[in-house]
């Protein structure tokens, strides 16, 4: 009944009445055996979602019957090859258990599974810090252009000029957007970008003859930052945030010394707050010979407005799968280019794209100070095509408006939910807003429970329990993709859940109610993991 669900003119009361009328009778909840009347369900539903038949589907192995096949092949009309002769000991005789199913069974299997998914194309995906924005169809169109889709990295440079031109143009665009001097597109994702960036920091300090030992990291940082620093061999020193949730400049000045290689800062930080002392932070680092690394995960709040290169950042990564609209999550792959200032350029991973004397583009491998290659070939090329399509489709003004809309949307949600949920830091929000479960915790309902209930309302949950400096954090990032109507549905859902917590906290603690399966037993899964399917004996 899409026209019914979409009818915005109905008052809430009218809507609930119509929904009550539309679904009659009792339904037994599959998940906990309790009988819940439709009325009870509907009272707690909003306009975004209703129930729908959900197809049960087992494992593909369970559908198998011996000898069944999707295709019947014609008899072999070439001489048979003796595989054992070719492969020797490497020949695998026992292929193990393989599912044997017909074509329609396999199509239905995966189609049914796909209906269990949640996706940005179904609705808002407010997973804070992940920038789950819409992946425009034009990106997909361009990436499927034959010459790009079928290009091969082993093609000679001479016939790869188009692909090289894309690498060069995207590099130039990202350099302009970040205000940096040079870039590598190789890293496969954000944390890989961090690793590449810190390898360059290490190579830089080595070249100065003074390899340093420590990396400073604020307590609001993404967990990948300390992990990266440790991977590169640095000791991690924690930097406490001040009362506004920002880097404490005095504490930084006190902790900064000649043993510190770099500060890794996220700006805006994980509270969605812009570090407005960033110039002073950079000066403190540079005065003692340290570098400023910026985690660009939150670049969606800056594009077209402020450039890290202009506020003292020496090295930073971008997440094309966040800021530049390439597919995220299971869809990926990711892409984490690293942009640097001139002083770090010699250390960039090789090869780098260069313009040659004859006017063509090519790869330069002669980079004696390079940290080496960090990724096979030249990175996730398909993502470069999509990111460039996004940049060109928007243009400079469009990108600027994207930033403005992302910030506007986050603040619209902030305004809508302020008073209903606790706002631990009142500092102005940029592209995301962090609430806490302080009010609801009094009824024993925590951020994870509210997130689970949000699934019943047809939304992907927000980020729970992060950043670590907020107890019971609820981190919400709508991105610019959301129209006001969707934001209103989200606010309505969150308010409705808050009301449920007051009326009937146990109902929220038992959620989700409207999903295929109830809450998973994460403890049993961690303590007694079953990692592979085995046929029943």
């Amino acid at each position, binding site marked *: 009944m899409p026209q019914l669900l979409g009818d915005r003119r109905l008052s809430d009361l009218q809507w609930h009445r119509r929904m009550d009328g539309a679904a009659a009778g009792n339904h037994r909840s599959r998940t906990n055996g309790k009988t819940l009347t439709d009325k009870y369900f509907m009272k707690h539903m909003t306009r975004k979602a209703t129930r729908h038949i959900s197809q049960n589907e087992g494992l593909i192995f369970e559908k198998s019957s011996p000898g069944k096949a999707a295709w019947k092949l014609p008899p072999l009309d070439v001489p048979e090859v003796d595989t054992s002769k070719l492969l020797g000991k490497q020949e695998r005789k026992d292929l193990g258990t393989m599912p044997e199913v017909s074509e329609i069974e396999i199509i239905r299997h995966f189609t049914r599974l796909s209906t269990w998914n949640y996706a940005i194309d179904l609705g808002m995906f407010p997973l804070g810090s992940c920038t789950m924005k819409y992946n425009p169809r034009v990106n997909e169109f361009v990436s499927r252009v034959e010459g790009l889709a079928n290009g091969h990295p082993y093609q000679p440079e001479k016939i790869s000029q188009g692909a090289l031109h894309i690498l060069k143009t995207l590099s130039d665009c990202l350099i302009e957007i970040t205000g940096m001097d040079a870039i590598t597109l190789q890293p496969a994702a954000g944390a890989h970008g961090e690793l590449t960036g810190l390898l360059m920091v290490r190579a830089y300090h080595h070249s100065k003859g003074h390899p340093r030992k420590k990396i400073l990291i604020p307590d609001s940082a993404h967990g990948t930052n300390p992990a990266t620093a440790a991977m590169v061999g640095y000791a991690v020193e924690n930097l406490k945030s001040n009362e506004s949730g920002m880097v404490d400049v005095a504490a930084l000045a006190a902790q900064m010394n000649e043993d510190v290689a770099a500060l890794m800062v996220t700006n805006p930080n994980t509270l969605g707050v812009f570090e407005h002392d960033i110039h002073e932070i950079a000066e403190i680092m540079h005065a003692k010979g340290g570098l400023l690394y910026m985690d660009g995960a939150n670049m969606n709040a800056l594009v077209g407005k402020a450039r890290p290169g202009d506020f003292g950042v020496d090295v930073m990564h971008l997440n094309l799968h966040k800021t530049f609209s390439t597919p995220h999550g299971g869809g990926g792959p990711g892409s984490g280019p690293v942009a640097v200032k001139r002083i770090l350029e010699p250390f960039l991973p090789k090869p780098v794209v260069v313009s040659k004397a004859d006017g063509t583009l090519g790869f330069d491998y002669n980079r004696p100070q390079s940290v080496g290659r960090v990724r096979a070939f030249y990175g996730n090329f398909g993502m470069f095509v999509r990111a460039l399509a996004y940049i060109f489709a928007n243009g400079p003004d469009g990108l600027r408006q994207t930033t403005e809309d992302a910030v506007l949307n986050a603040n619209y949600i902030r305004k809508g939910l302020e008073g209903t949920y606790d706002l*631990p830091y009142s500092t102005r929000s940029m592209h995301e807003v962090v609430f806490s479960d302080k009010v609801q915790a009094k009824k024993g309902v925590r951020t994870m429970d509210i997130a689970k209930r949000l699934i019943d309302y047809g939304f992907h949950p927000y980020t729970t*329990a992060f950043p670590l400096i907020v*107890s019971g954090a609820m981190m919400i990032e709508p991105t610019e993709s959301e129209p006001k109507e969707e934001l209103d549905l989200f606010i309505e859902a969150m308010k409705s859940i808050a009301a449920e917590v007051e009326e009937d906290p146990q109902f929220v603690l038992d959620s989700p109610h409207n999903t295929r399966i109830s809450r998973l037993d*994460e*403890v049993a899964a*961690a*303590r007694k993991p079953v990692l592979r399917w085995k046929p029943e004996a």
Partner: protein
Amino acid sequence: MSYPTDRKYTKEHEWISSDGKVGITTHAQDSLGDIVFVELPKVGTELTAGKTFGTVESVKAVSDLYAPASGTVTEVNGELATSPENVNKDAHAAWMVKIAVKDPAELNVLLSAADYEKFVSEEAGH
């Protein structure tokens, strides 16, 4: 809640008893949630006060364990390898390692039960 007075506490939420047993506090296990794995050092490992000596993994997070004092590990509570939930059941009984404390004076700088309780209630501010 009241914390046992027969031991000292750290701001990182470990306790150490007079016989050198080390564990985490009830408050720590409560904020971590269900503990699914505890990684501990081997007997003979030298611990340094304030440095990590192991990790505790819950469904929510993996957290470092910090040594309340310097010393050599003389015993490890092997039960926790198969029954990490013991820490949730009674954190003040489920000791993790026993150490031969190098310098007993180091224990003097740690928190008393009353001070720790005060620290925890202040920390809950945000």
